[in-house]
């Protein structure tokens, strides 16, 4: 009985990995958006652990995908460097901003941006 549940858990894990990895390589993003809820809902993981564990999963996948993108000459290092500089500043600022501005409202604002941007990308 135990063996059967172990096997079904392994199969579920392999499927989660395949979907997460494919999205990561295909879209260069979205791995965490898939892996975290999948681990919580399908594998019954605790939400805090799922967030931390997702990083240990997505980091190696991202390194591999990045190597492929670099070797296929899709990287603009000058552009990447400027964006990363902003990102480091944003990481520090974000921690302070969250104390001032309620997270739920920020999330909804970003959700609206995502939907509008998505429609433009599909339509144009």
């Amino acid at each position: 009985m135990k063996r059967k549940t172990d096997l079904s858990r392994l199969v579920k894990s392999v499927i989660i990995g395949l979907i997460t990895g494919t999205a990561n390589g295909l879209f260069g993003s979205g791995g965490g958006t898939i892996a975290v809820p999948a681990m919580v809902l399908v594998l019954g993981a605790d939400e805090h652990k799922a967030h931390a564990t997702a990083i240990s999963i997505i980091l190696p996948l991202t390194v591999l995908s990045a190597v492929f993108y670099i070797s296929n000459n899709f990287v603009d290092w000058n552009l990447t460097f400027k964006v990363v500089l902003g990102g480091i500043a944003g990481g520090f600022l974000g921690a302070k901003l969250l104390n001032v501005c309620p997270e739920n409202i920020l999330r909804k604002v970003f959700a609206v941006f995502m939907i509008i941007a998505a429609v433009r990308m599909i339509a144009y």
Partner: protein
Amino acid sequence: MILFLIGLISGIISGMGIGGGAILIPALVLFVNPGQHTAQSVNLLFFIPTAVIALIIHIRNKRVDLKMALPIIISGLGGAILGSRLAFSLAGSSLKKWFGVFLLAMGIYEMFRKGKHKTGKNEQSYSHKHP
């Protein structure tokens, strides 16, 4: 300057657990237009240094379940090869549309999902642990 700003905003929301890529990639494509593949490569490279730091902290705090992660990582590496090859086989204009569909799904999910602490089930399990 616009590149720095896009990075800044993405850095802020990465800390909130929404993937930074959900803002970073569309903002680059719509305002800078470096090509869909290059925009995606920026996000991949952007993620690595912050993830290394976060992972070290999480491992120290024993929040990472490596037993759960291992089979997902192994099949995930296969998926990453598959996904990258699929991306390179597509023209930038069609990859952009597929990304748009994916982004739309993520946006709708983000719009309608409940806040972290609003699910009664979690609160119940916490109150059992800390009566």
